[in-house]
């Protein structure tokens, strides 16, 4: 005979203001199988948990239902309490009467009625629950960091400093990411390279860190604590172990017209090249699209001049497979394409540039050696107009609906640096709102206005066009209710940022969820901001949402703390709610194995006794409980109904449906 206890939580006024909690608890007293029912202000509190523990012991409860908030919040809390009182934790069911009821209803009568149904449903299920025991799986003490920008670098360094092995997989030929392209950084204006490159060097020299540059993630299998990852090391046509970074090949290479992507295409580079002076690894790479030897078979000059014999035109992509306990995704961002914003004339005018291009034009290692010259004719621009929110906060379908967050600050930085270095330059900034929350941020922006005399115009630009060699920037000045046209020499567009597109493939491989803007989704927006809902996968930097360097570094370190917390464990408890096949019903059709996203299902040949001493060998499904995530895809796919999920059996779910439908 089942002895069920029901506990209805008020959640302060969160539930109690809309649901008559006392009445719900009272009604439950007369439900079949229920021997105890109570309500309390905060079930999750120490006292609330005590109430549950006491009731379990005093009334010999065999199962409990807690009517409270989402199981995502406190299921673990109540399971622990039950376990402490001697009840199997899987004999606990949560009826979500907050998110699914009190928060979305206004009428108390209706909400109470619904709460009663929800609790009854949970009672129906708990009656069919069976005690389950969590298994254990070992933890591989090595972490993978995908992306070698500042987020990945920081996460890797922190994890490695705690004594764990870390691999950084970077798709470009060098680590450093976007931060390596920046000139100065706000709000302190220190040189980006000066603060980044020591960290890059630390990574290279750290005995626990292995940098796999020019490499991509090919496949991911496994689960938290035990991921198996295939990494493609792309052919760079240069032997990493031999190249000394002397750059003689770059001097001699006859194919010099490739666009220098590190400089945002503002100048050219040879087919064989090292992306920038402080690249890590300081090893050349050949662009196969541009290399004469690789395209035509003729040339081979770099090989002739290489003093150490590092050039290898025959090099092929290679694959390595490694095991990891945890994965940090730090794939970063790119500025959006401006093809939907022709009104700003980016495609038609060389002197309409993006902010990231301006970073390179201002950088001492950039195409102009840090002298601000306009791309069209190499002249000093005398009037520079900045346009903010190009493609940000755009719900028309042309741009991105979100605020890119960093543009207000970097535009203030650019404006200030230009006025500092070239005081005879006139600088205008069109803005919709200036958003500068952050320590010393608004002070920084105000300095641009008050100390450096940057002209901030509240309004938006409608058109940029070329007239008599000048860029005419026509926009509104909303404060003065005017339409203005500013004759400019250079126009700088603060293009919205978006997640690096390769993140989509990585998210799919990791079964990590992604939002409509391709940002990876965190497990909880406030309380689990660095964890993906996929266990063992952590998020750092722009791949999770727009953020600046300080925030990125904080998030990366937070990721590292989470990873370290995972890797110090020898074993992890596994979820016992896994799929199990009824071998007598399984017909070996493989459909379950085909839908399993985790590769948890294999097929085995098994001998069955038929009676009369006869046996038969049949092919049946077998689930690896350590790999199964309990998603249930196989249970609904199985045509013969052989597959079931422990803790969520078809019988249990049908009993819930019946409880809901019953009047």
């Amino acid at each position, binding site marked *: 005979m089942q002895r069920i206890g029901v506990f209805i939580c008020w959640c302060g006024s969160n539930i109690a203001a809309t649901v008559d909690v006392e009445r719900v608890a009272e009604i439950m007293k007369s439900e079949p199988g229920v021997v105890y029912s109570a309500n309390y202000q905060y079930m999750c509190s120490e006292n609330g948990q005590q109430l549950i523990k006491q009731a379990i012991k005093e009334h010999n409860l065999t199962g409990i239902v807690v009517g409270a908030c989402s199981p995502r919040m406190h299921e673990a809390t109540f399971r622990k309490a039950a376990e402490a009182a001697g009840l199997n934790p899987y004999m606990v069911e949560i009826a979500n009467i907050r998110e699914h009821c009190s928060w979305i209803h206004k009428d108390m009568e209706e909400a109470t009625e619904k709460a009663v149904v929800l609790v009854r449903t949970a009672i129906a299920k708990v009656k069919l629950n069976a005690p389950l025991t969590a298994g254990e799986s070992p933890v591989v003490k090595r972490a993978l960091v995908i992306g070698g920008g500042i987020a990945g670098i920081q996460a890797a360094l922190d994890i490695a400093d705690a004594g764990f092995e870390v691999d950084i997989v970077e798709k470009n030929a060098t680590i450093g990411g976007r931060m390596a392209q920046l000139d100065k950084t706000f709000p302190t204006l220190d040189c980006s390279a000066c603060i980044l490159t020591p960290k890059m060097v630390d990574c290279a020299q750290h005995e626990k860190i292995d940098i796999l540059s020019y490499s991509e993630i090919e496949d991911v299998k496994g689960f938290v604590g035990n991921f198996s990852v295939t990494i493609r090391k792309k052919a760079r046509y240069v032997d990493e172990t031999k190249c000394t970074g002397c750059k003689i090949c770059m001097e001699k290479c006859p194919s010099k017209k490739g666009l220098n992507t590190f400089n945002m295409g503002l100048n050219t580079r040879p087919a064989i090249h090292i992306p920038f002076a402080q690249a890590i690894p300081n090893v050349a790479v050949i662009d196969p699209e541009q290399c004469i030897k690789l395209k035509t078979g003729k040339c081979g000059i770099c090989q002739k001049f290489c003093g150490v014999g590092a050039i290898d035109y025959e090099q092929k992509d290679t694959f390595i497979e490694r095991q990891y306990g945890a994965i940090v995704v730090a794939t970063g961002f790119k500025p959006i394409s401006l093809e939907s914003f*022709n009104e700003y004339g980016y495609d*038609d005018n060389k002197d309409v540039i993006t902010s990231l291009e301006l970073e390179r034009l201002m950088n001492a290692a950039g195409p102009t050696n840090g002298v601000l010259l306009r791309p069209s004719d190499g002249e000093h621009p005398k009037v520079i107009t900045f346009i903010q929110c190009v493609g940000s906060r755009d719900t028309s379908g042309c741009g991105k609906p979100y605020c890119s967050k960093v543009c207000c600050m970097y535009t203030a930085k650019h404006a200030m640096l230009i006025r500092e270095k070239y005081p005879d330059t006139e600088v205008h900034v069109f803005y919709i709102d200036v958003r500068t929350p952050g320590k010393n941020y608004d002070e920084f922006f105000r300095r641009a206005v008050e100390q450096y005399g940057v002209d901030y115009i509240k309004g938006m630009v409608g058109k940029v*066009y070329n007239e*008599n060699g000048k860029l005419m920037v026509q926009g509104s000045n909303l404060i003065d209710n005017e339409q203005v046209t500013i004759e400019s020499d250079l126009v700088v567009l603060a293009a919205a940022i978006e997640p690096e597109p390769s993140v989509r493939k990585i998210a799919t491989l990791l079964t990590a969820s992604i939002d409509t803007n391709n940002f990876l989704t965190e497990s909880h927006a406030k309380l689990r901001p660095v964890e993906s809902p996929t266990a063992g996968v952590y998020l750092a930097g722009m791949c999770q949402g727009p953020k600046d360097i300080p925030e990125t570094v904080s998030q990366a370190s937070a990721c590292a703390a989470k990873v370290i917390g995972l890797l110090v464990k020898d074993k992890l408890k596994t979820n016992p709610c896994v799929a199990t096949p009824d071998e007598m019903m399984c017909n070996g059709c493989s459909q379950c194995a085909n839908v399993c996203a985790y590769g948890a299902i294999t097929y085995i040949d098994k001998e069955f006794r038929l009676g009369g001493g006869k046996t038969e060998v049949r092919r049946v499904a077998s689930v690896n409980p350590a790999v199964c995530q309990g998603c249930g895809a196989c249970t609904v796919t199985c045509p013969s109904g052989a597959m079931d999920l422990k803790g969520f059996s078809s019988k249990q779910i049908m009993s819930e449906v019946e409880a809901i439908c019953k009047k």
Partner: protein
Amino acid sequence: MKISYYPGCTLKTKAKDLDVTARLCAKALGVEMEEIENWQCCGAVYPMATDEIATKLSAVRALDHAKHNGGKLLTLCSACHNVIKRTNEDMKTNDDIRFRANNYLQLDEPYGGEAEVLHYLEMLKTVVGFDNIKKAVVNPVKRKIGAYYGCLLLRPSGVMAFDNPENPTIIEDFIRAIGGTPVIYPFRNECCGAYVSLKNSDLPKQKSKKVLMSAKEKGAEEIITACPLCLYNLQVNGEGTLPVKYFTELLAEALGVQV
């Protein structure tokens, strides 16, 4: 091939040149423009108010005719094209307008945006093909020509789907096909202001001058357009800054079609 053709009020009177040259050129290129029977004036301006139904009916009648006669409706005047294309979109996507318009018209079968509205330039591009026009040219127009799109062909781009609203190329491609050199200038997609001529004569003057000066500065020797109203405005208010012609006049010249 035959295509149902909607000429519109102005092409029968002040813009006869546009109509006549277009028909002759189409014929030379193997397309017969079949003027639809009993067409009524489209109203020359698209009524945006969501409760305007009666003002859209003449466009719907023409569209319904095309639906039953080949499925395509060829337009030439930019204003007609704008009105008919936008009305067609309403009939396709706006349940309320479609219901009420059909209520008025009581057609044998309700009209629901089935016809395809095709501007003459789109016809040249997709039905004839600019490459075929190039082959048919006997007298290449070896001049620097500025395309003037104005507002009606391009906007709202979501509905008109004519070309990139900020950086259109179709008329430039046409100019190349007839042997000319297209001149890109920033005001080719700006409104010439002609619509308010009766209320405000100053604005059309300023705007048309701006358009022509912009084209001239970039090296254009003449301007072509598909809109009779733009042509009028640019000619009258442009004070001879540059010659302004219908694009079909240049097509006729290039094809050696005698008008």
